[in-house]
């Protein structure tokens, strides 16, 4: 501590404001993007967007994407990709759906089972990548196809010929674990708040917001845990090291193989979690679930400041990246823009948000 104070007095250092120090963190730069996007929608969007229920509304997809994005971000920091997470959502959804509907398992069995299967597949991805030293891009791409195909075949088996498996809601509705993975949390509080008029209600008196969707809580919790792990534990240090330079890390004694395989497993488990939550919420699963989510997750991580080349990034950045992406995709529907222009706006907003975030960070840190 004394040392630090002393080095700060070094004549080779300029004074630097708190703002500048904060903005150096990759995660905090992304906040600038969130602020910009919020400002944009405050001006252009229907005021319903920023009511409590509007916020829950765009945070729900943001959270579902964000859970994936946090896994993807950790894996990217560790220097690898997983293109199979979208398909993994479908496949884990199938495993979970079949467990509860076809085999009638209780959640306490079905959920760990689903996660275990996902983790096993993630480990397999990782092992192939490490054993063959092929790029993870190509290995997990193969799994993208294989798992997507397996979901189709499996669904047809489980549902007797359809590509949709229904009846999950009925199967789980009385399970004591269900409230942790579906629906809205803190319902009674919201009802109470509505009664005293703090929350808007529909004409029939039910609160417009029945609670906080559980995925939002999972999302926040995971972001915090991931941030803690990355910044405060040895394992987090290993993740950065493995992604920064695999050989240098291994030569310094980092168990690179274990780290990478664990990251593949974590990412797969995140996908399984999203699968469980969305399947329970939707009450059904189909062969197209999670389609393209692998890319959206990577996008969110990159918006949040992760480098594609590994070794740099943050979970909190991915958190804000997912929120930006969620706000932009849902937010545009609150505006009066014609749907034909949707993609033009989506692309434009993404670019502007990222440019702005980048611009702010550079100004503040004085990088060239």
């Amino acid at each position, binding site marked *: 501590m004394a040392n630090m104070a002393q080095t700060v007095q070094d004549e080779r250092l300029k004074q630097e404001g708190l703002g500048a120090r904060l903005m150096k963190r990759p995660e905090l730069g992304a906040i600038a993007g969130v602020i910009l996007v919020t400002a944009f929608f405050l001006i252009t969007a229907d005021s319903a967007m920023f009511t409590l229920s509007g916020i829950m509304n765009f945070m729900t997809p943001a959270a579902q994407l964000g859970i994936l994005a946090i896994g993807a971000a950790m894996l990217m920091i560790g220097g690898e990709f997983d293109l199979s997470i979208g398909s993994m959502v479908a496949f884990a959804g199938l495993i979970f759906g079949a467990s509860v509907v076809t085999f009638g398992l209780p959640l306490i069995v079905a959920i760990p089972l689903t996660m275990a299967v996902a983790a096993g597949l993630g480990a397999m991805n990782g092992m192939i990548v490490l054993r063959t030293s092929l790029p993870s891009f190509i290995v997990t791409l193969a799994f993208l196809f294989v798992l997507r195909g397996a979901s189709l075949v499996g669904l047809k088996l489980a549902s007797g010929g359809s590509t949709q498996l229904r009846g999950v809601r009925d199967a789980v509705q009385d399970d004591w674990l269900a409230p942790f993975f579906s629906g809205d949390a803190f319902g009674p509080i919201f009802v109470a708040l509505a009664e005293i008029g703090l929350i808007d209600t529909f004409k029939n008196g039910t609160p417009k917001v029945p609670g906080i969707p559980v995925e939002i809580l999972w999302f926040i919790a995971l972001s915090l845990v991931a941030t803690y792990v990355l910044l405060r534990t040895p394992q987090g240090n290993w993740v950065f090291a493995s992604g920064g330079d695999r050989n240098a890390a291994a030569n310094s004694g980092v168990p690179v193989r274990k780290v990478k395989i664990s990251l593949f497993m974590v990412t797969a488990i995140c996908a399984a979690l999203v699968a469980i939550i969305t399947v329970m919420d939707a009450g059904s699963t189909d062969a197209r*679930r999670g389609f393209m989510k692998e890319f959206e997750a990577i996008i969110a991580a990159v918006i949040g400041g992760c480098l594609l080349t590994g070794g740099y990034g943050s979970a909190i950045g991915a958190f804000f990246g997912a929120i930006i992406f969620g706000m932009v995709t849902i937010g545009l529907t609150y505006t009066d823009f014609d749907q034909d222009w949707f993609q033009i706006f989506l692309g434009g907003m993404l670019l502007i948000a990222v440019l702005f975030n980048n611009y702010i960070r550079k100004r503040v840190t004085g990088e060239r």
Partner: protein
Amino acid sequence: QDIIVVAHGQANDPFWSVVKNGVDKAAEHTGANVDFRSPETFDMVQMSQLIDAAVNQEPDGLVVSIPDADALAPSIKRAVEAGIPVISMNSGSDVSKELGALLHVGQDEYTAGKAAGEKLASMGGTVGICVNQEVGNVALDLRCQGFSDGFGGSVDVIPTQNDPAEVEAKVKAALESNPDIDTVMGLGASLVGEPAIRAVASVGRTGEVNVATFDLSASFLESVSKGEAAFAIDQQQFLQGYLPVSFLALNASYGLIPGGNVPSGPNLITADKASQVVELSAEGIR
């Protein structure tokens, strides 16, 4: 008056762009303020969130397509509970009532497929393929199933991705490896129907192999009128956009609503009618 349409297909999908044109036309005619929205891909989870977003805005009417009743039910019910009049269109005829929608405008997929199958069988078909460019969309599965049941003969389903060159090559591959195939049923006109016609031509069997498709495209209709293809199944999706919006506008103004579902299709377009429809199709109306 604010009316919101939430559909599962995108504005850049040739089929849905026609629906959207119908929506726009109705908006123009009724003076209502109408929004058309859809998820970026066929994504039931996101679609339910879009419905929620619409409900938050408390519009005077809501139009939805329902390709997966389980997934969309809570959101639709929430709309109904919130007192928003809902009309369903395109898919979901079977569940529409149960979820509280006022009525449904669309065609029954299975029946349409079956009708097509019967027609193709009557044209002499015995061995067919059903080309599905959107594997996993249950509505499309139903069509192939209907087709297979109506056709009677042997039917293989060929899944493809979204690329015309790939569809053409796959249809050609199927025709070459099984020369008995005499019928090709496509589930979309520009993505499957048109390349299928080219594939049939490239194996030199134009006229021998019957090509039919769901939905319309101007190019495909031209082929129908030239006799290179058998027919297209029109579900007049312009109506699926136009009618629900007008109904809801009338409902908001005067409380009027028709007493039952409106079947907008199926409507087989064969050589005799095709040429009249081409221009309308090119304008995005059929």
